[in-house]
């Protein structure tokens, strides 16, 4: 059997490794636009901060691909996929396949506004981006978009000694992960780190001659030499669309729970797909490393004829700001709009948490200050354990003795400290 994989990110590599685990004979060929081996995008802010060297972000060497017997066609763009003939075109060559895995990933968006093409505009996506930012020697940097990438980049640049501004369009930072209150706590923590955070501001343009000199928002002008765009990503689905695969309403490739696309023999995984959310069951985009890897496992198993099912997206994002862990699991109130949500929250000097429950089920959890018990909460969200049942279990000596690890979550479930 011959499996072709398009994409060299977390999903593509995980799929390749997983296929190799299932079969030692199967022929695997990987295509990627980039010419470098797999790297960890999540480690890039750490490089920017100077905590780890750039070469540590690379997870594989060309030797590893050889050992896994994966043929690589890196630096080669796939031009076309012909699903009827089961063949794809890359360069001037044609490659035939039995199974195709699309893991084309996503691309950060730089909006087409005045000055966004000037020298000094960056994104954080590849190791090259980080190299370019470091070579640029930023001193005053504005990060546009306070998602998790934005916040981590801001923290990292602050660690380099830059003057850092963080601009967010919505009324709070990390609006898709946190609610207003925990977001405000995190914002205060960032401000203590001397990061200047502005929420509720829209960026209108970038000014400068050849270099970025100022960033214009609808409320102020900020003097800067570097602008980093972290205001969202776009799925790379052009190839899939050209091939005639169904694209969903959110802009991702449509797949079923076996990660199979609308056409037979084609699977997709990673950032470029949309799949149901573990709680709501509605289609959602998950741009997380863990989702990509799990989806790739499922795609690889199913394309080798083994059964595996994807449970659904559930976001887990963890940040460490000044050594204090901040966690957001599942949905926040924004994501639960339309559901009647019960909020269990607690605030004390060194700990804040809120647990969101809908219909006796935990749907989301946000915590600043501790990681204790988050594992069991995450398990509850994924599993859909009723809150009442969890409370009963925690009071039952017979059951708790076999699942003592559940005890860590008791303070969140009962709303105690």
């Amino acid at each position, binding site marked *: 059997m011959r499996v072709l994989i398009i994409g060299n990110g977390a999903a593509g590599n995980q799929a390749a490794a997983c296929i190799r685990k299932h079969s030692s004979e199967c022929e695997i060929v990987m295509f990627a636009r980039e010419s470098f081996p797999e790297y960890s995008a999540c480690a890039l802010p750490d490089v920017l901060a100077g905590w780890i060297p750039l070469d540590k972000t690379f997870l594989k060497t060309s030797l590893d691909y050889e050992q896994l017997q994966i043929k690589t066609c890196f630096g080669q763009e796939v031009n076309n996929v012909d699903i009827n003939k089961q063949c794809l075109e890359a360069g001037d060559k044609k490659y035939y396949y039995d199974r195709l895995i699309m893991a084309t990933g996503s691309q950060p968006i730089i909006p087409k506004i005045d000055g966004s093409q000037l020298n000094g505009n960056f994104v954080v996506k590849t190791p090259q981006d980080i190299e370019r930012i470091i070579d640029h020697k930023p001193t005053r940097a504005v990060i546009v978009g306070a998602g998790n990438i934005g916040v981590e980049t801001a923290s990292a640049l602050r660690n380099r000694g830059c003057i850092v501004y963080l601009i967010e369009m919505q009324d709070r930072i990390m609006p898709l992960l946190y609610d207003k209150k925990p977001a405000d706590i995190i914002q205060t923590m960032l401000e203590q780190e001397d990061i200047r955070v502005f929420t509720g501001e829209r960026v209108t343009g970038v000014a400068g001659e050849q270099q970025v000199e100022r960033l214009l928002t609808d409320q102020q002008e900020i003097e800067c030499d570097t602008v980093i765009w972290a205001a969202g990503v776009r799925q790379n689905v052009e190839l899939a669309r050209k091939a005639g695969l169904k694209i969903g309403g959110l802009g991702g490739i449509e797949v079923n729970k076996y990660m199979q696309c609308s056409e037979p023999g084609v699977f997709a995984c990673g950032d470029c797909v949309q799949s149901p959310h573990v709680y709501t069951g509605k289609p959602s985009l998950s741009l997380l490393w863990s989702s990509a890897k799990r989806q790739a496992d499922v795609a690889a198993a199913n394309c080798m004829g083994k059964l*595996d*099912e994807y*449970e659904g997206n559930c976001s887990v994002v963890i940040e460490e700001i000044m050594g204090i862990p901040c966690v957001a699991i599942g949905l926040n109130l924004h994501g639960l709009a339309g559901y009647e949500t019960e909020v269990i929250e607690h605030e004390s000097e060194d700990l804040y948490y809120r647990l969101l429950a809908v219909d006796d089920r935990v749907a989301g959890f946000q915590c600043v200050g501790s990681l204790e018990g988050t594992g069991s909460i995450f398990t509850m969200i994924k599993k*859909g*354990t009723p809150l009442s049942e969890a409370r009963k279990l925690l009071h039952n000596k017979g*059951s708790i003795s*076999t699942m003592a690890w559940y005890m860590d979550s008791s303070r969140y479930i009962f709303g105690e400290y």
Partner: protein
Amino acid sequence: MDKLIFVDYQKCVGCATCEMVCSLVHEDICSPALSRIRVVRYPTEASNVPITCAFCESPPCVSVCPSGAITKNADSGDVLINPVLCIGCRQCVQACPFGHANFNFARGTAFKCDLCGGSPQCVEFCWTEALQYVPLERALGEKREAVGRNILQSS
């Protein structure tokens, strides 16, 4: 759940037919170690106790499973493992009070009785009638009758 595997261990001779059949049906091999139903033998007491899933009302294996692979069907009462979702953490093996949930290391997942989808083969092949797949009420009635007869005879 109206029907369950009812065990009359007074009748069990420990022949291991049920274990052979079970492993053959589920694993394509006659190996009591991979059987869902297991017979505990007490040679000196001349007793044999077949142990299978009790299909508890609130099963510890279901509460303990972190991946949601074990579920109890509210209508039929069946407690089943979905091997696709099993992450192989063996919590269910430690939690089951009967030592029924077991672990297949070759496959890396846990296994337990699934009632063969409605017609348990161990019962089909049990020639001593130690295993019966009967409605609970009938099994209890028979037991009540036996006790009554016992009292009548001894009085």
